[in-house]
């Protein structure tokens, strides 16, 4: 996790991602100009802020929270009430661009209150308290219907509010640009926070709270401030969510939301600043696109998460980063072909596995398992033996080649090379 310790000076070369990523973000809606895609991109922005705020806890401070949606959701509800008040006042009051700040203030406030007793202890105790708090807030969302709007939720209209810049926010592309702006601001702030004494000591407390005490720091206070700031950014994301969706219901404070941010952050890689950005984007994308293609998308989601936890605990960014370091150190020399072979056979195995899962889903879940359905572009019948055999064969051949042939081949190659180096 060395990359998470805010090392290195401010370097002009390191600034390029900060220019390239926003540039791509601004160009994207002109390339994909369907309303659906632009909404998806806006959701990604919200998810990115939320995941970055989550990683202030998990990656930077070592706090595993199961209830981070509380601050996202309460921020969203407060912002929604404000938006409704603005709507009721005939579109006068706080400009819509600044609405996320109301969410941030709410996140901060609730962070101050709930954080005061959550962060006494790290580890399991903290995780359990956040789980309990998440459940508490979610269940009260169904009790206090005036504030939470009950099961129907609350509506507001972003285009019936004043705009600071005189922009009409009815078109979703304009909203998207607002999201990009806030995402950039939040990302820069969260990035800079890592460079401060608090950010450093958060890492220190994560690594060794006892040593932190013996250099004068109270680990509880370090965790607390970090928690409050994280809640503040979660609330900001919630406020932005109000603008993109114009509706909030009890789901935004629920466990699913808390789980999704944990999943996204972890899949991306908690040891990297960019990890939550990648993870949140991917998860949002999968949620929207995968669910349109297959009923089994939650299962794929779970499988992805499990395999990351088991085989690549540093996340997707971690995989890329280690491979990159390996490549730079010359570890790919002479075996790039083998690496490609492993990758391709693994992908073939995954393809086979997907076929098996789709067949099973159709067979067990469909009203009429015998009805023909389209599997990978081919019309098949799940009650026949052939598609099953083919799918299993692809799976076994793919993974078999990868695990029993490709991996040993690579290992032999590497050890042969290092022996050669010694001789």
């Amino acid at each position, binding site marked *: 996790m060395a990359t998470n310790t805010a*090392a290195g000076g401010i370097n002009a070369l390191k600034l390029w991602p900060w220019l390239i990523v926003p540039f791509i973000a601004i160009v994207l809606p002109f390339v994909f100009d369907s309303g659906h895609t632009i909404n998806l991109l806006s959701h990604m922005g919200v998810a990115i802020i939320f995941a970055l705020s989550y990683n202030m806890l998990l990656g930077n401070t070592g706090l595993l929270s199961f209830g981070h949606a509380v601050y996202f959701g309460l921020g969203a509800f407060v912002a929604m009430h404000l938006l409704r008040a603005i709507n009721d006042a005939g579109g006068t009051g706080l400009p819509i661009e600044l609405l996320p700040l109301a969410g941030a203030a709410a996140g901060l406030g609730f962070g101050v209150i709930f954080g005061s007793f959550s962060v006494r202890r790290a580890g399991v105790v903290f995780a359990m308290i956040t789980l309990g708090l998440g459940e508490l807030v979610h269940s009260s969302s169904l009790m206090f219907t005036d504030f939470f709007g009950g099961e129907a939720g609350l509506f507001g209209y972003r285009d019936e509010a004043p705009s600071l810049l005189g922009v009409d926010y009815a078109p979703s592309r304009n909203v998207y640009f607002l999201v990009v702006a806030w995402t950039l601001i939040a990302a820069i702030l969260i990035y800079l926070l890592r460079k*401060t*004494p608090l950010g450093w000591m958060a890492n220190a407390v994560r690594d060794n709270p006892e040593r*932190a*005490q*013996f*250099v004068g720091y109270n680990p509880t206070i370090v965790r607390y401030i970090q928690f409050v700031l994280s809640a503040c950014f979660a609330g900001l994301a919630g406020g932005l969510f109000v603008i993109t969706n114009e509706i909030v219901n009890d789901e935004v404070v629920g466990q699913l939301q808390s789980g999704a941010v944990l999943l996204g952050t972890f899949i991306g890689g908690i040891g990297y600043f960019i990890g939550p950005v990648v993870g949140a984007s991917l998860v949002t994308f999968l949620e929207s696109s995968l669910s349109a293609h297959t009923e089994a998308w939650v299962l794929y989601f779970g499988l992805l998460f499990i395999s990351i936890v088991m085989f690549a605990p540093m996340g997707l960014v971690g995989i890329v980063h280690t491979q990159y370091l390996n490549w730079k150190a010359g570890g790919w020399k002479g075996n790039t072909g083998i690496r490609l072979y492993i990758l391709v056979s693994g992908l073939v195995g995954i393809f086979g596995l997907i076929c098996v899962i789709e067949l099973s889903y159709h067979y067990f879940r469909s009203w009429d398992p015998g009805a023909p359905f389209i599997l990978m572009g081919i019309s098949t019948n799940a009650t026949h033996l052939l598609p099953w055999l083919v799918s299993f064969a692809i799976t076994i051949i793919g993974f078999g080649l990868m695990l029993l042939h490709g991996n040993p081949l690579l290992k032999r190659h590497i050890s042969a090379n290092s022996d050669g180096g010694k001789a």
Partner: protein
Amino acid sequence: MTIRNALELKGVKKNFGRAEIIRGLNLEVREHERHVIIGPNGAGKSTMFNLISGRLKVSEGSIKLFGNNIHNLPAHKVNRLGLSRSFQVTNLFQNMTVIENLRCSLLWSEGHKYAFWKSVLGQDSVTERAYELATRLNLTEQLSTQVSLLTYAQQRSLEIGCTVASGAKVILLDEPTAGMSRTEANDVVQLIQRMTGENTLVVVEHDLNVVFELADRISVLVYGEIIATGTPEEIRNNEAVQEAYLGTEVH
């Protein structure tokens, strides 16, 4: 001129359930002295350190640091009053580099507290002191090495460095040379002497060569009580000590 006591333990007791580990411990450590605690295994040396440094609560009695009561204060408050310690098992920020460890250790004593509006790397006094410490620790080559990749002896020196960096006047070192070869141990002793010049030092140590080289005064802890305190010469010649602890090791 009277010499101040840096550390004063009076009638300190500690039980774990029924087991009394520290049984009425009295100890005075003078300012600027190097005080070594010796004693057989299980005598309660580490427990004593844990009591002084705020890691454990005292069952009875009082501990004073420059006249302030420090018993039962949390460790970070004890540290802010001017005491720091090292541990038997190396205790560093494992995922950070050498220079990052030193910077973290300096932040509080340089007055940066929990600030989240300024950059750590922009604090020139922290940077300056961190590099200066690294030079004194002979770790300039390893500045950006992650500490988990350092040799054991380097980790121990860095730990002493971090302990000193926290700005403490009184420094407790728990077996600084444990598990080291003769030469490594000698290096560490020299390092301790170099690093801790003006500070008051309390050291738990097993290696008698180290003890007699380092100590201004020695206290002998046996079964939770100090049975003797004195100069190395006095301790060498103390019959009770020879019987209880040194046995045949010193003739």
